[in-house]
């Protein structure tokens, strides 16, 4: 197996506080990894560093063996890494279809062209159309994204993320704010659309985590304290102390 993503002693400080304190991680291609950890541990920050939203203070990020740390988000995206956001981040005044098409365009090589009509780009349109069906928003094709319900917006968020066909996908709390039932359906959807891709996801819902992940990375205080299979992580004493707490988590995990 090849490494899709590798972090080498990644560090990030904001001002004087070091938020990420030397994270190293190796993700095999096609693996599904859940990143868990207490609030403020640095999970979203880790994603921000990987996806180029912030440059790391030190350390390396390798995507398919190529160093990408310090690159701009669009450069990283073009190399095949795409992410979603914890707080919904879509194009509110464009329709669902347009949102998805925006996600598709670059990867099909249309770049900054203004000499071709969008309508003539059969491949882009078909891709966006298929994607829309896959995230089950085809009924809302021409609704402005701002007018979607919360769950639909979350789905669109993930839709845009996978639209470009990136093979490494980072999802930050994709199910936040959804009801149990919606969450369940949504996780199925994520599994379905990321088949064959490398997936990293942040989640607090242990049910989701244990249902989805091949491996779990536990981030505490800016460090990855364990990186292992779900079973072993659950059994890990340190994880229970720092994160899971006692009964609640078990019950939640068991709920599915």
């Amino acid at each position: 197996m090849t490494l899709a993503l590798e972090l080498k002693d990644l560090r990030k400080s904001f001002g004087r506080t070091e938020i990420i304190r030397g994270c190293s991680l190796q993700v095999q291609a096609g693996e599904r990894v859940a990143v868990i950890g207490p609030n403020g541990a640095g999970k979203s920050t880790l994603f921000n560093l990987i996806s180029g939203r912030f440059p790391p203070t030190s350390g390396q990020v390798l995507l398919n063996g190529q160093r990408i740390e310090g690159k701009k988000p669009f450069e990283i995206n073009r190399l095949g890494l795409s992410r979603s956001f914890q707080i919904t981040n879509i194009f509110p005044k464009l329709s669902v279809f347009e949102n998805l098409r925006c996600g598709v365009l670059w990867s099909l090589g249309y770049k900054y062209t203004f000499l071709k009509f969008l309508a003539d780009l059969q491949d882009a349109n078909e891709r966006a159309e298929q994607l829309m069906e896959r995230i089950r928003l085809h009924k809302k094709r021409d609704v402005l994204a701002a007018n979607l319900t919360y769950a639909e917006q979350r789905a669109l968020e993930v839709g845009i993320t996978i639209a470009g066909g990136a093979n490494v996908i980072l999802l930050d709390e994709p199910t936040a704010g959804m009801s149990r039932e919606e969450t369940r359906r949504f996780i199925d959807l994520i599994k379905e659309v990321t088949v064959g891709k490398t997936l990293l996801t942040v989640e607090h819902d242990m049910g989701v985590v244990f249902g989805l992940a091949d491996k779990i990375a536990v981030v505490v205080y800016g460090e990855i304290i364990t990186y292992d299979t779900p079973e072993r992580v659950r059994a890990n004493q340190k994880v229970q102390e720092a994160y899971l707490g006692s009964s609640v988590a078990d019950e939640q995990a068991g709920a599915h």
Partner: protein
Amino acid sequence: MDLPGAVPRPVPEAAGRQAYYSFRPLNVGRWVVWSGYALLLLAAPFVFTSSLALTMLSQMGVAIIVCLSYNMLLGQGGMLSFGHAVYSGMGSFLAIHTLNLVSKGQLPLPVSLIPIVGGIASALFAVLFGYVTTKKAATPFAMITLGIGELVWASSLMFPEFFGGEGGISGNRVAGGHPFGITFGPQIQLYFLIAVYTFVCTAGMFAFTRTPLGRMLNAVRDNPERVEFVGYDTQKVRYISFIIAAFFAGIGGGLAALNFEIVTSEVVSGYRSGAYLLFTFLGGATFFFGPIIGGVLMVLAFVLLSEFTKAWLLYLGLIFLFMVMYAPGGIASLIMMNVRVASFGRLKELWVSYLALACTAVVTLLGAATMIEMVYHLQLNAALGPKLTFLGVGLNARGADSWFGAVFVMATGIGLFEVSRRHFVRQWGEIHEFIAREMKRREAL
């Protein structure tokens, strides 16, 4: 015409979907709208024939192009520019210099192509200035355009060698060869040249909204951060669009140069830039065709309103105030709201209300305008006696009866307007509830 930002249309029939996004040149609605537009451009000079009307029509064509190009920035890219006149103006200057070269026989270029020279020149300026301008978005962008605008304007007076000083640069458009006897001397010939350019540029800019770059420009407006995560460099999207907008603005400027045959530094002034901003907004920045209305209104306001009343700037200010407050989407949004109502077949119920609203509004305005005119008269022409005529009615600006009459007319107007407005609001609300239900129903199908 289906325009970006328009109200969401109902989902098309499943069978039609395949054809939905493929370009259909024979889309009936679009065909009708565009030929109507062309026809309007063609027929206008035969309806309005005076020489003032002709030159106004020509200026409208120019204003339409420039306002549309401005809206590429404002409406489509969310870039609030205070310096668009720099680009239309530079187009004008380069065009007039080119025209003079042609006149002197140093450049074998048909006069009809000079606007393109203006466009290319502006685009080159945009390559230069735009690079720094579009580095930023939002307020910093607006402020850089303000700064560059002020600098260019100040320079335009300082360098008479290029800008011609106070007198500007004049030229003679009757130059070069005269194919088919077209000299562009008579205004009507020039009008048709402008009309052709206006049509082509409008089509071109509309087409732009339908291209990948045009769409990404919308995306950058809505959420620049996310754009970076789908592979695009927002700065580059803004930069390229800025250059294209400048290109069209330059064409407009070039046409203006041919129209007036003189270009003075006012064409790059901040005042001009402000006018483009205001009228684009007034026409409606959220719809593609809004700036067309804005351009027409701009010429009407500057040329006609000021002839009609000395208080024109006051009226203009008030119109803006009320438009921004009550119709922030501009006139285009008012139109589109009614089109939407019409598409659900409910417009015809409204015409009585509209008539009532219009009549009462006119009465109110009449009263208010009478008072404004009397005040202006007192201020400006008091020495000529208190008598004035307004709309054919003799008034006495110092007479209680005139004032009483005006106040009475206005008060009545306001009262009746309020009554019809309430009625209208109820009706409008009811119709929109109906539309919302109807849309849900269709969606469920």
